[in-house]
């Protein structure tokens, strides 16, 4: 292959490289514009008064811009309540997922037990199933499991915040076990040998030695999980019946119905719901990306 290429006259390549450069810029600048347009356009609609856009359409020069849509969307929809639901689901779910996943990952990566691979396959494969494969039996199961009333006033796992936390934890465990066990494998075994010599027990090796070393991976996964669980739509739609108990992402579907006559309010509501993810995007983008790629690039 190389000999055939080497015989090619070199001068021909120079203009091609330049053309390639130009094409690259055209592609990337074009794509960037296409990619941000829907978001910028929604932002634009959300800032314009309904009275104006109903006459001129969305694609028109603004006579006035206002934050009034945001105020209205916030107050008329009880958005704070939905945000608190999201917090009540996301925070415990992220902490529990990371804690349980790190336990399994530690055992799989650093304790020699015979079923390591089986465990890893069990968790990894479970995370790859489409949610709809399990939803029908899961829905029936949620109707069967009783809950103390201080956790769920329906008295069931169904239609309760605790139920949503449970499924998010169970479903995300697989991915985190996979990522964390791969990460823990990169910790040199000598450190554990030294710890054993110093008399460190199993728990100390997990909690005092492994967990601090995993901080970067845990931070990346926490960013990823927070975004994913906050963004969850499917579990909340199927496992929460009462609209007022839904987290904010799935409550959007109801708001769409409520504001159907005033699209500018929907745009404002959508932008409000996007704020937490946009904050993560601006501040923690690298963490998010490294969480994603930790799951894909290591063997």
């Amino acid at each position: 292959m190389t000999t055939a290429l080497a015989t090619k006259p070199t001068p021909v390549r120079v203009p091609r490289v330049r053309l390639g450069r130009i094409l690259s810029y055209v592609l990337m600048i074009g794509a960037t514009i296409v990619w941000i347009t829907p978001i910028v356009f929604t932002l634009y609609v959300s800032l314009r008064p309904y009275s104006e856009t109903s006459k001129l359409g969305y694609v028109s020069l603004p006579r006035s811009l206002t934050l009034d849509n945001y105020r209205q969307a916030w107050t008329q929809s009880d958005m704070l309540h939905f945000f608190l639901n999201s917090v009540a689901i996301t925070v415990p779910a992220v902490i529990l997922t990371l804690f349980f996943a790190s336990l399994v990952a530690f055992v799989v990566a650093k304790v020699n037990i015979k079923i390591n691979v089986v465990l890893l396959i069990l968790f990894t494969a479970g995370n790859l199933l489409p949610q709809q494969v399990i939803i029908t039996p899961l829905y029936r199961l949620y109707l069967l499991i009783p809950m103390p009333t201080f956790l769920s006033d329906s008295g069931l796992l169904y239609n309760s915040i605790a139920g949503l936390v449970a499924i998010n934890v169970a479903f995300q465990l697989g991915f985190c076990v996979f990522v964390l066990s791969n990460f823990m494998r990169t910790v040199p075994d000598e450190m554990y040998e030294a710890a054993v010599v110093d008399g460190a027990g199993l728990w100390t090796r997990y909690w005092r030695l492994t967990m601090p070393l995993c901080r970067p991976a845990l931070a990346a996964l926490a960013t990823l999980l927070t975004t994913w669980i906050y963004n969850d739509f499917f579990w909340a739609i199927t496992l929460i019946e009462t609209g007022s108990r839904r987290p904010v992402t799935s409550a959007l579907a109801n708001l769409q119905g409520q504001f159907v006559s005033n699209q500018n309010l929907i745009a404002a509501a959508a932008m409000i719901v996007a704020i937490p993810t946009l904050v993560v995007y601006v501040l923690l983008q690298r963490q998010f990306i490294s969480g994603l790629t930790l799951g894909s690039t290591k063997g």
Partner: protein
Amino acid sequence: MASTVTDAADDAAKSPVTPRRRRYRVGRLSRREILLVLLMLAVPILADLAFVWGPAIASVFLSFFRWSGVGGLELRGCRPAGGLLPDNGCLTGGDNYSQAATNYPPFWPAVEHNVIWLVVFIVFATPLGMLFAVVIDRGIKGSRIYQSALFLPVMLSLALIGIMWEFVYSPNYGLINTITGHNQNGNLVDWLGDPKLNLWAVLVEATWRQAGYVMVLYLAGLKAADPSLREAATVDGANAWQTFWRVTFPTLRPINIVILVVTVIESLRAFDLVYITNRGSNGLELLSVLVTNNIVGETSRIGFGSALGVVLLVISLVPISIFLYQNFKRKADR
């Protein structure tokens, strides 16, 4: 801290190259330690079995029953139709499957839409994401900006994406129709309402997000690839196109498989976008929506919904097996 993460990711990516030392042995675990290991594993394993694998297996089991969810299940054949009420909670064998295939109008359209979804992801979204990654990786000016912009949709929830695009597609006021002059009542193009168009319109939204996702995954793979190979190819006179296809691409086999798996799984999971657009009806039927309709709707048909779920399960086992084989075969090789 962010840089440590990426370093760690890079190290991890390179680890197959460095020879691995033998695993440390703690010797035999004491009885207390065995108990501790069991305690550590108990809750996560129980959660995974009860909420993920249990339901997955139960859906296979339930798919052979006719059950409305009311009353119990009995291991007996269903009485032939004819009574006042159809028999309930009884075994129907493969009836749910044959009904889905022959007597359930949305089934085949949904299968077709899922296939179209997958094909668009494979021939369009994924290559587009890979192209973005390759161009960014070659280091053009402003690559940071492009990368951030293209990645933005990956952070947003699909429900939100569906809502944002409604402003782009809106028949009277939307961006596309206004610019192309199709916003008068005589010549409206109803992108999301017309069953001949709406699947494609929604697929543009899905591609918009998926390409960014693939781009990030692929960029990580490219960064971890050995640069000396590429340099050697360039020295030998290969152009960029040849270098990519003959040198870089083959060395990225593991990440290519991850991306293939992600692509297939994501197209089977597709749900949020069509649900937020029109609840997955009128041209936007997908298998995932049909499953959901049969449990949450007024007529809950647990057995039938499970059968549809099993169809999804069987299809998804293909990419899952590929991924597991790829991943754990390599581990065993080391």
